[in-house]
């Protein structure tokens, strides 16, 4: 079935490449459920639907924009300097983090302006988005994809927002599930993080059905 879907998608859309990029970023290669990155805020904020929505949206926006910014940084600053002996691989780590940190600061100011309630409910987790390893992970995977699979600028844009969307999807699903089981009887030792991790594992297993959707 998934193979049929891939065929149909390839035939219907004008740039099948972008669809594949999106599907792989959000589903088959889900940054949280397949790669297990960005677990901390996932486990803590998925308790409430509203904050999960806000956090997921914020992470998606940050991942999308920083992927693009880091791509530009990589292509126009780091790569041109490599012939001079500048180690792009190690330097990119530092510079990507700096860009992510700066962008999150910007986002904080914007959120404080737009919605105080969201700002307060995210609390300390807003600046903590900076060290959400999913975001740095997405940027680093993006570099691999650029080098390995030949992603261009548009691919990177779709990839960034797609990876973020995948994280968003995962945290919304988890929030929904936790909301449903909220009244239920969870054994004392497993309450809170314990049962959440178990559910995450089950979700990860479920997401493996997407493997094979894309013929590489």
């Amino acid at each position, binding site marked *: 079935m998934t193979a049929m879907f891939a065929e149909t998608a390839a035939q219907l859309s004008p740039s099948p490449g972008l669809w594949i990029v999106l599907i792989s970023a959000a589903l088959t290669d889900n940054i949280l459920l397949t790669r297990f990155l960005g677990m901390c805020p996932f486990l803590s904020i998925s308790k409430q639907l509203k904050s999960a929505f806000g956090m997921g949206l914020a992470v998606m926006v940050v991942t999308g924009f920083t992927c693009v910014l880091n791509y530009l*940084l990589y292509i126009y*600053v*780091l790569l041109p*300097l490599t012939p*001079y*002996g*500048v*180690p792009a691989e190690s*330097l990119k780590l*530092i*510079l990507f983090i*700096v*860009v992510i940190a*700066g962008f999150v*600061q*910007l986002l904080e*100011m*914007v959120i*404080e*302006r737009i919605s*105080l*309630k969201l700002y*307060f409910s995210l*609390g300390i987790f807003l600046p903590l988005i900076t060290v959400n390893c999913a975001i740095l992970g997405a940027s680093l995977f993006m570099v691999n994809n650029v080098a390995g699979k030949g992603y261009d600028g548009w691919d990177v844009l779709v990839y960034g927002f797609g990876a973020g969307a995948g994280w968003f999807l995962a945290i919304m699903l988890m929030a929904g599930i936790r909301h449903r089981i909220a009244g239920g009887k969870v054994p004392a030792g497993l309450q809170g993080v314990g049962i959440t991790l178990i559910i995450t594992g089950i979700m990860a297993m479920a997401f493996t059905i997407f493997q094979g959707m894309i013929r590489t």
Partner: protein
Amino acid sequence: MIPVLPIILAATAACAVTTSLAAVLLLAERYLVKYGKCKLDVNSGDRLIEVKGGKSVLESLKGEGIFIPSACGGRGTCAYCKLKITEGGGPVAPTELALLTEQELADNVRITCQVKVRNDMSLLVPEHLLSAGEYRGVVERITDLTHDIKNLRIRLTEPERIKYRPGQYIQLEAPAYGDNPEAVYRAYSMSSMPDEDNCIELIIRLVPGGICTTWVFTMLAEGDEVRFNGPYGDFHLSETDREMVWIAGGSGMAPFWSMVRHMAAHGIARKTTYFFGAVRAADLFLLDELRKLDDQHEWFTFVPALSAPADEDKWYGETGLITDVVGRHVPDGSQAEVYLCGSPGMVDAAGRVIEAKGIPPERVFFDKFG
């Protein structure tokens, strides 16, 4: 061979990226975090002020000459700056939730140093805070009353006069010094008489490790300039004619020293018994002056008591815990009013005696910062 070129290029690239990011953030802060002018409605139209948004309510009010007391300098730890914000307060910040009770939250009481002015607001400021101002003065005299209590006499320079009731307090500013990076404010009751309105006196006891008292005891000298806000507080003589029982210890003397001299000067002849407790004779001060007032005025009785007098004190006055002494001296307190100024321990102990004498809570007045 050190690869110089790559290092220089890498360093330049890193600096360039970081600097441009910093520039973007600075610009963003300038344009995003602008809230424009906001109107603050104080006491339902009593005062309307317009301030530039973005600062805390506490700071904005201070800028307009309304001084709300704060012991922690806006850090959100002391809860002195509570006010009711009836409109426009926005969602309650997590730092406020830690300091407010459920009832206060329901009544729209907020911690004003944690609420940013982002839009028009309506707030209620108690009368006595509205009349508080900022004062500058010069230290005229510092006298030692005991080994750990000093009397500070401050002559006002700007403005030159202060109006207050006996029993009120001011917040003295201790400037940054030594390891102390910021100025802090600490509250002290005024021991001076309101009639002498161009100066104030404070009785300050050294607090071990205290920021302000260390400054007063080790660095402040006669001739130095000081700043303070006030007057604050609603600890004052009641309007009735009832008999009064005053209980104090240590620096708790201050408001009562102001009250008794004011009463003497104005002929307020209410029956008053003043119980002053200390451990040993070395901790007592102003004894002669108070005994003189006791002799001169029929309505005033001064009862000092020592809880652990040393032999060399040759103490012939009352002994025991001050609260026990009160118990012995006040046969029928049912018609009296009680005024308390002291540490929580003393206030607790006094509370038990007061209950035993059948004095109702509405006739018990505390100096509320201790």
